[in-house]
């Protein structure tokens, strides 16, 4: 896909097409990884992946996340 470098204030930028941001679940303010390979003249944009330590039990964490989603209505307001 070809994009043009545009001016953003005093910087240069490119606009990401909506279908790309939608497919990557990138919202306004989402932080992403930007890798620059000057030898290959390539720039890669990547979603930041949270890597879990080896001793995490994924099933255990998913169970906690399920309860977080299930009880979001009560959990969301109790620290306000």
């Amino acid at each position, binding site marked *: 896909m070809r994009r043009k470098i545009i001016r953003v204030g005093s910087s240069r930028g490119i606009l990401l097409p909506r279908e790309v941001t939608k497919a990557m679940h990138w919202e306004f303010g989402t932080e992403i990884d930007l890798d620059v390979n000057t030898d290959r003249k390539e720039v890669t944009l990547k979603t930041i992946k*949270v890597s*879990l*330590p080896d*001793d*995490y*039990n994924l099933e*255990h*964490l998913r*169970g*906690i*996340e399920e*309860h*977080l*989603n299930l*009880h*979001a209505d*009560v*959990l*969301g307001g*109790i*620290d306000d």
Partner: protein
Amino acid sequence: MTDNQKKELKLLCFVNWMVARKFDDDFGVRDLDSLKSVVNLPGNGSLTCFLGERLSNRKDLYSQLGWFVYYMISGEPFISKNRSVVLLMLIWALNYYRLEFDVEALTDFIIMLDPLKQGNSDISLWLSNNCR
């Protein structure tokens, strides 16, 4: 710190991140010593009830949960969402141990809890009376 305590500490940090991300709030540790107090039970014990280990003694479970709730609320180890982390972990643990409880009553208890008036044994007692 023991390996279990470190594991527990990492789990709580992860849960804080998960909750803060869900509700678009800040995450992270505000006071590491307070967080260490949460996972450091008397006799260098740890909160094994959150590690997927099923405690055979119900009394130990209430005692661990009482400790956890008290030190999380009094010490506020995280930048935000301390009580939400407490409630979420309680809901998870009580479901894990297949105990019956009323989420609304538990939520009210956590919201109203004043660590200057209620200690960890009071909290354990409330849990043992209301989650069976």
